[in-house]
């Protein structure tokens, strides 16, 4: 029987943070995730590394936590963080009193907020509305949730941590009120088996409730859906926040070549519901257009939604480790060997993991201290190595590849490009992904479908939304036996585009319409992937 000391359920930021922390403390840990890693809230938010300024008025404890973690995450995950800095902007008509409270709140929380003139703000961000009356610079940053989560996994692996994707928890094995193991099902083979463990950590985010039910427990987590819009350009080079009482649609975050506008908050019964409606989109647009007046002319790439795990204590069952997230030790309810951690925000994932591990490890007789804030997640690819590799990469491709791949894989990719020049071919021209990189990621045991590869390489996530690389990648990946693409490349190609379609459907107007017409013209017409055979 497969065994681990600790099994962590949930491959989001919380789960991988715990995996890393436990592994670094010498605890044998295995993380299981029902689909691909980082497919829940951790990849479906605006990617803001909070300075904490958003909480400066209402929740200064949370604000302080944010600024501390912000500083730590920048240090340990330099290749995941774009140090864009942020602006808080007040428009004519927004409450000036709030501005005063906010300034005071930032000071009290230790967040550096530097005032600049509206003219200066519009000089550094020319697209900002002329109705701007006040502006402040804050240490916000943009963070790549995927990448940081995968880097946590890479770091954990160095310390013996393990991950199994497409492995879903379907039951908890309990004997005499003690957790003995977890019953899981493989998504592809449908095989069910047991993994033995001493401790079970439920880090399933908005699915916490479902997982706890498997153990006969009740965890009151309310999934709250947040919708986000991805624009095709860097509208601003900095995070832009609205300086007023927090509401929907008041944050713009640049991510590489795109900008994300978010977000909203709707309670939903099912965390799988990542649908979005025209109303939700319009809700964000009508606020966003006040900050960037030409917003409606900009091309929307897609919309997406994630569900936040909002925990509401029914009574006083949880011992709150800190505001915003909660750690539940189910031993208090008579089930030994299971803990749930729920809530929180990406910016504080590391702190959440630290608090949970501080509680969990002593139970295993492990008294190691947390070192996750001290050590970099992954070593950076040395400049000299990148410089030497430039000749194989397309322009503006080497840095992107290095940050996506990390040192070991980057080295493999460069070697492949040296030995097989045909792998220098650029498969995804919008995001500069070469065949060499694609082959490297495709060979990983965690890669099963094209979308898994897409998530690791950003294939198809750029301007053409897969119009060109869907074909190329389906063909290139059909040569890998571990991928579904090898059995049904056409189906995979369609699936890839269908996955993109989900995010495009709710915004089928303006420039986005044009791109869909092109997709259909190519795939339905020129390649006829949808039509049937002659009778």
């Amino acid at each position, binding site marked *: 029987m497969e065994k681990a000391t600790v099994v962590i359920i949930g491959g989001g930021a919380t789960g991988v943070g715990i995996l890393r922390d436990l592994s670094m403390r010498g605890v044998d840990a295995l993380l299981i995730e029902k689909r691909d890693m980082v497919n829940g809230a951790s990849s479906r938010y605006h990617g803001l590394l909070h300075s904490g300024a958003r909480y400066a008025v209402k929740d200064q404890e949370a604000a302080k936590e944010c600024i501390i973690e912000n500083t730590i995450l920048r240090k340990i995950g330099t290749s995941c963080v*774009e140090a864009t800095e942020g602006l808080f902007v007040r428009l004519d008509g927004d409450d000036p009193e709030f501005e005063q409270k906010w300034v005071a709140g930032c000071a009290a929380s230790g967040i550096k907020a530097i005032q600049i003139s509206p003219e200066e703000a519009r000089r550094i961000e020319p*697209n900002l509305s002329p109705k701007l009356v006040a502006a402040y610079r804050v240490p916000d940053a943009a963070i790549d949730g995927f990448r940081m989560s995968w880097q946590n996994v890479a770091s954990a692996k160095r310390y013996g941590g393990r991950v199994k994707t497409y492995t879903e928890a379907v039951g908890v094995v309990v004997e005499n009120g003690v957790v003995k193991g977890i019953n899981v099902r493989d998504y592809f083979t449908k095989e069910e088996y047991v993994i033995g463990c001493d401790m079970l950590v439920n880090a399933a985010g908005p699915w916490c409730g479902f997982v706890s039910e498997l153990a006969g427990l009740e965890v009151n987590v309310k999934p709250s859906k947040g919708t986000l819009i991805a624009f*095709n*350009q*860097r509208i601003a*080079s900095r995070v832009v926040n609205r300086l007023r009482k927090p509401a929907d649609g008041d944050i713009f975050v*640049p991510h*590489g*070549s795109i900008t994300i506008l978010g977000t909203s908050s709707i309670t939903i019964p099912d965390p799988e519901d990542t649908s979005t409606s025209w109303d939700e989109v319009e809700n964000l647009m009508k606020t966003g257009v006040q900050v960037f007046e*030409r917003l409606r*002319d*900009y*091309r929307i790439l897609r919309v997406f939604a994630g569900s936040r795990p909002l925990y509401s204590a029914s009574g006083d069952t949880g011992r709150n480790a800190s505001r915003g997230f909660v750690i539940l030790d189910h031993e208090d309810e008579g089930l030994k060997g299971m803990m749930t951690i729920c809530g929180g925000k990406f910016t504080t994932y590391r702190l959440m993991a630290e608090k949970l591990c501080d509680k969990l490890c002593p139970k295993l007789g492990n008294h190691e201290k947390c070192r996750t804030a001290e050590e970099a997640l992954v070593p950076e690819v040395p400049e000299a190595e990148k410089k030497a590799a*430039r000749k194989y990469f*397309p*322009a*503006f491709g*080497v*840095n*992107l590849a290095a940050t996506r791949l990390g040192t070991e894989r980057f080295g493999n990719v460069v070697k492949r490009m040296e030995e097989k020049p045909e792998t220098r071919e650029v498969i995804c*021209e*919008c995001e*500069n992904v070469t065949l060499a990189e694609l082959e490297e990621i495709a060979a990983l045991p965690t890669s099963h479908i094209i979308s898994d590869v897409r998530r690791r390489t950003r294939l198809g996530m*750029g*301007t*053409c939304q897969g*119009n*060109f690389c869907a074909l190329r990648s389906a063909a290139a990946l059909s040569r890998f036996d571990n991928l579904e693409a090898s059995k049904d490349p056409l189906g995979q190609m369609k699936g890839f585009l269908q996955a993109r379609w989900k995010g495009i459907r709710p915004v089928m107007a303006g*420039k986005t319409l*044009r*791109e869909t017409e*092109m997709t259909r013209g190519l795939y339905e017409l020129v390649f006829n992937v949808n039509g049937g055979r002659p009778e």
Partner: protein
Amino acid sequence: MKMEIEERARDSADNCLACTSCIANCPITEAERKYKGPKFVGPAHNRMHFSDANDVENTLDFCSNCKNCDITCPSGVSVSTLNMLERAKYYRTHPHSQRDQMLAHGEDMAKKLDSIPLGKTFANLGMSIGKAFGVLDMMGLAGKRDMPAYAPKYFMDMFKEIKQTSYPDKVVFFPGCYINANDPEVGVAFVKVMQANHIEVLVDENFVCCGSPLVVTGYLDEAEANAHKNVDRIKYWQSKGYPVVACCTSCSLMLKQEYAELFSQQDMVDAAKNVYDAFEYLEILEEQGKLSHDFAGKKDKKYLYHAPCHLRAQAIGLPAYKMLKDMVGIEIENADAGCCGMSGNYGFKKEKYEISMKVGEELFKKIKESGANEVVCDCGTCRMQIVHATHAKVCHPIQLLAKAYKRFNKQ
């Protein structure tokens, strides 16, 4: 696409769907294997700067700014302008070659030579000797070409000696560097045609080089300074109600369109409304019923018209060709053979010479097969290329039109 002032060339990159129209129609891409095609350089890299402040696309230098990509783009992306902006970015941190310095600053050179006694004569002599001895090659210039000779008298000086009849209707002529220093007869023909139509031509000593050779060699800041100077003057004439008219289609494109695309300033957009291509202006006169039709009889000559790419980008069709064929009744055919390959100073660069000649192959073939007596073209550098490749006789359509008028008809 009509551009609002905020919609810079950079913003137009948002429209790019990667449809490959520009790549398929780019003459350089067809002629040169190394060039990745316009879409990769301008629109794509414009989005990718965030990833690497120092990286450079090594095929950046191939774009000739011929505008064929802009003409074929169905999405309204200012592809060639984005390419030029990328090039300018490169040269902010890399030095220019002496060769580029020379090619970009033709106006300065022309002025200097004019101020030295016999300067132009010696320069012309020097250039032919230089060619013979391979000196041009060594300097990085295309040694097989003849460098454009300086005219004994520049247009701006010749103009002073033209006795015009004064009329209430006036236009201000923008000669541009090539007509001024190398081909002043074109300017003289323009004055003739205007006079035949009861219009007085003014000139403005304060005009400077339109900036086209500066833009394509990556001296963007200097081009912007020139733009401001020219725009100030154009607006001055605008306030007086006098249009600014250019015979050189690269100049008119720069003044009408590229300034606003590159530099996105409101006054450039305003000034553009006062600039006309010469035949565009003549066509307007014709619409207003003001154009003189006092032509001499038909000649026995056959002409072939070559449309400069920079004219095709102006969205005014081919007014010179149309006018000469339909109105004047000249026997003239449209070569319709794409780009001649010269594109400003591009073809003068040693390493671009072969590409330049390959691009123009179809045109050269058509010229040889057409049996035409003379090739007519509104662009000075196109004319140079045509002469170099085919030894055909060339002229600017305004010269043909001048000759067509009875009063100037010597035959």
